[in-house]
């Protein structure tokens, strides 16, 4: 399980804005292996979302080199290498939950019968059986976000990219979804890139934590988690967990030392 899926070398990205150029990423080097759960954590403006968007070919680097499954991000998108989950569920209000999950399948041209089959499977995967015929507004925020995860899983990409997917939800719902996400990860063996603001969330979920710091966005620390893959919620009270969280906090503080 040490096959690299995403490799970034000397990645630079500079946005041209009206206030002059803004360096969003500088000299980012990172390897993500198959089956990893990698969290990106850091303050606003540290480039964590930008890096995720570069992987997804939603932004294009101005320097350096990145491969996804050995291809350029654009080619990887064409070969349906990843599913992307945004901060908001972004379900279409005029489609049912099943209709929303079918959206990528319709665009990618899956046959009708297979669409139904896949919708059924992913709804089961996110514990939303029986909600296919409901409209988004009939579901709670947490259920909507689960539906959007199901939508990203529907076409069975190997990589799941998640941009603060639980950021808008309350802590209790978030805990629950984190547990479910770990279970889903264990079952599907996917590689997950996960952007978050929350130290406990990053430590609880990840096998690898990438601590980033802002202006310009760069990697401050990469922590390989010593925690086992099997993680009950109580693991958050163990000394190992607290030690990792401490190191993340140190990394974040170091990134801020100059201001």
């Amino acid at each position, binding site marked *: 399980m040490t096959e690299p899926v995403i490799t970034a070398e000397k990645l630079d990205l500079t946005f041209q804005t009206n206030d002059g150029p803004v360096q969003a990423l500088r000299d980012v080097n990172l390897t993500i292996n198959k089956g990893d759960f990698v969290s990106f954590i850091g303050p606003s403006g540290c480039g964590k979302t930008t890096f995720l968007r570069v992987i997804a070919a939603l932004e294009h680097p101005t320097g350096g080199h990145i491969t996804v499954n050995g291809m350029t991000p654009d080619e990887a998108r064409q070969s349906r290498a990843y599913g*992307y989950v945004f901060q908001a569920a972004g379900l279409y209000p005029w*489609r049912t939950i099943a209709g929303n999950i079918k959206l*990528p399948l319709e665009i990618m041209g899956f046959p009708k019968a297979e669409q139904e089959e896949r919708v059924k499977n992913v709804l089961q995967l996110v514990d939303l059986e029986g909600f296919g015929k409901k409209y988004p507004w009939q579901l709670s925020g947490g259920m909507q976000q689960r539906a959007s995860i199901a939508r990203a899983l529907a076409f069975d990409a190997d990589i799941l990219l998640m941009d603060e997917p639980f950021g808008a939800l309350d802590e209790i719902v978030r805990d629950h979804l984190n547990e479910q996400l770990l279970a889903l990860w264990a079952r599907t063996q996917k590689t997950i890139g996960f952007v978050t603001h929350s130290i406990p969330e990053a430590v609880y979920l990840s096998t690898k934590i990438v601590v980033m710091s802002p202006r310009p966005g760069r990697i401050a620390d990469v922590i390989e988690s010593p925690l086992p893959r099997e993680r009950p919620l109580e693991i958050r009270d163990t000394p190992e967990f607290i030690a990792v969280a401490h190191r993340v906090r140190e990394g974040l503080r170091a990134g801020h030392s100059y201001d």
Partner: protein
Amino acid sequence: MNRILPVLTVVVALIVLWYLGAVAMNAQWTRDQAARAGQELSFTGIVADTLSQDRPKLPAPHQVAAELWQTTVQKSITSKRSLVYHGWVTLSATLLGFAIGTGAGILLAVGIVHNRAMDMSVMPWAIASQTIPILAIAPMIIVVLNSIGIQGVLPKAIISAYLSFFPVVVGMVKGLRSPDAMQLDLLKTYGASGGETFRKLRLPSSMPYLFTSLKVGIAASLVGAIVGELPTGAVRGLGARLLSGSYYGQTVQIWAALIAAAALAAALVGVVGLIQRATLKRMGMER
């Protein structure tokens, strides 16, 4: 009952004001007539006369109602004096103009959203087109089309379309642009084409905006059709009734035609509203 009562109160208040206005405005003529005949009129005599003149400055509501009754129910609908006949003439031009205007408006909006050159160039012209008084341009449209052999309902429909395309363009452009960056990015991650983005995201997102525009547009269509009837020599249609009424000082006829036009507009907007509710409900967008 909770919804009817306030509406009824306003209607009653308006009718009372209307009667007061009719008495006040028509009293001068009554007094002049009496003075000429050398008669003295009591107050009740003045009031009674002001509400039953043949050509009052302001006809009383019951006079207008009687005229409406006579020219709709009591005339055969093929008669030249039937408001139903004239209403249908105007309605057919309105509906044709509305169809043309809506179609043109949607096409322009699609162009504006998808083509940068159109975005920069078309919108200022669309806005400029609405600053020209329709009364000034309507006769020219009639004359120009007539000279190339186009007569009948089409010139009126084009004037009607001229007024109704604008709200549709504005509403549709806003609607087609209503999906946010995240929703567009999502489709990008699926490798969706421009056509798919339009069909699956932009078009459905624009529906609430479209219907709001259609309500404004259909009322504007009716105004356009009526204005289009004025320069044609007052032959047929509600506009013709308005014009011939003013030629011959038939104020009761003018007011009856006005009320008929208002009722028609209300009915048209109501129909669009019903279609809106049915469509959005089918789309699951109405809770």
